[in-house]
């Protein structure tokens, strides 16, 4: 259950790079990575949006980790939260709705020297991209996915989201939502994610701890971060916001073995307000490592043949 043992430092990031020779993982650079260096345009989010806190905490965690600036990649799909890459001064890509995870998979598998972060919302992650979430989790792709869950479609102005609770009144459910909401923790557990945590945008210290542990996890790590939409669902997280009379109940890891899948399932039963913290974390070989092992094993049997020789030999067999 140790989390320290799977800490992935920048210097020990995935071992050999596949050809075409991707550069070896870069060691921390001399130039200090500061919040100022990481800041880009001012976010276009509404004043009071929970996503501001997520952005600020992400700056802070990167400042702490000091990865080389040029090796940080922010990936997003579509939605309010998916504008994240524009507000981060790092290499970034703003992709189509729901497909940020497969795109990030392509980045991660082809470039082991990079630190890949994916940002999105509940619609992007659990609805249109739901299938990709299952498969990125099962493949254990090396990346960190932060889902800013606000229980509503905000960018398109208040439609029901896959996490909207039953009874939530929206433009698409004027008499109240009737479909059972997704339970993110249980879905992720069932899919085989190796790091699953839950946090709250109003609890910045907790969020910082979760982000840091997720990023250091060697594998597919997901943090569901409840992040209030002040325009379309302002009361969504009152039950878990002490300031508004709710209870923010964290997981006591002395009582909860994070490697116990059954315990994690049990704990995930209560959707809201639910518990906050690391639900589950195990070590399983990443897809990145397994693919690299296949490459290494294959190439070790090639007796020094270059790829060009391999192609020539293959053509020879067709003569």
């Amino acid at each position: 259950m140790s989390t320290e043992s799977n800490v992935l430092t920048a210097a020990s990031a995935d071992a050999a790079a596949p050809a075409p020779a991707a550069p070896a993982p870069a060691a921390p650079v001399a130039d200090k990575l500061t919040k100022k260096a990481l800041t880009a345009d001012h976010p276009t989010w509404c004043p009071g949006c929970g996503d501001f806190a997520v952005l600020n905490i992400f700056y802070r965690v990167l400042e702490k980790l000091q990865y080389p600036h040029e090796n940080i990649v922010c990936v997003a799909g579509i939605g309010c939260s998916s504008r994240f890459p524009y507000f981060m001064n790092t290499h970034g890509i703003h992709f189509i709705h729901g497909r940020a995870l497969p795109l990030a998979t392509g980045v991660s598998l082809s470039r082991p020297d990079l630190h890949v972060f994916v940002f999105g919302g509940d619609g992007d992650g659990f609805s249109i991209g739901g299938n990709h979430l299952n498969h990125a989790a099962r493949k254990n792709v090396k990346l960190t996915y932060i889902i800013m869950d606000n229980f509503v479609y905000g960018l398109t102005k208040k439609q029901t989201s896959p996490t909207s609770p039953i009874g939530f009144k929206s433009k698409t459910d004027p008499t109240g939502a009737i479909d059972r909401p997704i339970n993110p923790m249980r879905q992720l557990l069932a899919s085989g994610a190796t790091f699953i945590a839950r946090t709250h945008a109003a609890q910045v210290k907790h969020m910082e701890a979760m982000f840091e542990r997720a990023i250091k996890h060697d594998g597919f790590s997901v943090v569901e971060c409840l992040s209030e939409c002040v325009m379309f669902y302002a009361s969504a997280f009152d039950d878990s916001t002490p300031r508004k009379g709710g209870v923010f109940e964290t997981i006591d890891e002395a009582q909860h073995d994070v490697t116990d899948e059954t315990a994690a399932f049990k704990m995930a039963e209560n959707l809201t307000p639910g518990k906050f913290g690391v639900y589950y974390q195990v070590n399983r070989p990443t897809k990145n490592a397994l693919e690299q092992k296949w490459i290494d094993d294959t190439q070790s049997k090639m007796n020094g043949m270059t790829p060009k020789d391999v192609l020539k030999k293959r053509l020879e067999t067709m003569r």
Partner: protein
Amino acid sequence: MSSTTIESAGSSTPSRTLRNAVIRFAGNSQDGIQSIGGFLARLAGRTAQEVMTYMTIPSTISGGPSIFQVHIGSGQVLTSGDEADVLVAFYQHSYDGHISSLRDGGICLYDSTPTSMERDAVVNLKHERGIKHIGIPFTSATVEAVGGSPRDRGKNMFVMGLICAVFNLDREKLVGIIARQFGKKDEQVLRNAMLAFDAGYAYQVGDLDKFFFEHGEAEAGHRISTDGNQMLTLGLLAAGVRYGAAYPITPWSTIMETLRTELPKYGGIYVQAEDELAAVSLTIGAAFAGHLAVTGSSGPGLSLKMEALSYASMAELPLIVINVQRGGPSTGLPTSVEQSDLMQAIYGSHGDCPRIVLAPQDVEDCFYIALEAGKLARKYSCPVIILSDQALSSRIEAFHEPDVDMHWVEPGLNLTPKDADFKPYPLERNTHHAAPGTKMLGGKYPVVTGLEHDEWGHPSGSPKMHSAMTNKRRRKLLDAAAEIHAPKVHGDQEGDVLLVGWGSTYGPIRESTDRLRAEGYKAGHLHLRHIHPLPDGIQPVLNHYKHIIVVEMNDYGAYGYGQLAMLLRARFCNPAIRSVCKTDGLAFRIKDIVTGVEKHLAGGA
């Protein structure tokens, strides 16, 4: 031509020399007739002969009627043959279904195993059109040689031996090819195969001439024989493609299967994605990360990739997309040939999203088109779609082995630091993104985006910027059109009719053109490998002919023109452009084309 090579046997000398012959094997999909065809095709490649094969398989997991047709010759072989000189029928249904494909005076070898042993032994022979029937007990003779029950395989090898003897094929070379194929399995398999082969070779056919193929003229360099999917795959590897992803679909799948097992040798990774959308997204991820990557599919799968392809145009990322077309719409005819995804390839997706579309004309060209796709994708940072098709994917041809040293592209990752004035989307130049890992010396890092943007990649809804960026993306096509060459016209450079085609119909159209010229028409053939953009310089070519007939395997559409014909009419406003189309899921025969063209020339249709 094939129809004049073999005369009805038994009428003259006991042996005769052939320039070429078409042999059709008809049986069920599990009888191993594809193996026979494959062996013959490989043998032809090794004996300086030309070869083209044609196969049909049922769209079922196992069983079902299947054919394999081999056209072998010492002269130029451009098609798999309109009609067969020899039909090898394994069953009654094979005989009934294919005897009409045998030419007048052709030879039919059929399984005459007594009905007590084989329910389907051929009966009710049609003694007409000068066809010579020769019954040979494929099944019982195989059982006699190998042992086991009639259900055991092996009669394909018996037939192989028989064909080897009848056509005086190079036995030593053929046995070598068979040994290499079966030797991979186990000794028992090879032993049984050889027992059956020898039994077939030794079988006394009786009243049949021995045929000899003229020796082909040995040319410099090696020749290889393989199919289109294989050559596309090898072309991608030579082009420096090391990453990609796809989802299985017929007839595309064999490309992804080969890439999945081959790429680790090249240090690369190919992912089987959860769906088509994930596949193209993953590939765009690898492209964003700085690699040339490939995804591919067949018809319906290409439709699913469309949103992401629109993104790749907008975000200006290089990408190779292969579409091995099959019969459509919807799941259509998964194992039949059609060229009906052209409009989708060029105009599918939302918005104006320019991309380059190429089509290989034969198996050999699959290799070179993959290389060219890589070059164009890199240069113009946009998606390049390769339109292959079902016929090309599986047919085997013999051709010159490509010179790997000459064409090899070493994949590279460009992480050269960028200066402060770096613009990811310059209006005046081609976009070449800074891959992650690139130091930005000015301290500002770029975001690649599908939102309309300014030169720095900032989202911009300005009307002026959208026009400027749309112009910029379109201009790539104009530059590409100026860079690529118009293809040379085969045949008459001016006159009555120009036949225009694209993709795998190259051979039949070329032979049809020659046939028309032999009949006295002044005819030319223009085959387009670059379909979008069209190369500059086509307009003057069209002006030299009275009639322009586009020959393609898709429907006439609402206004009477096939898909390429429609595009050419729109592009050149030329009323002389007409269509000969066909949608039966089978490859064009020469007579389909010649008849269709003559109808137009006569002023009909």
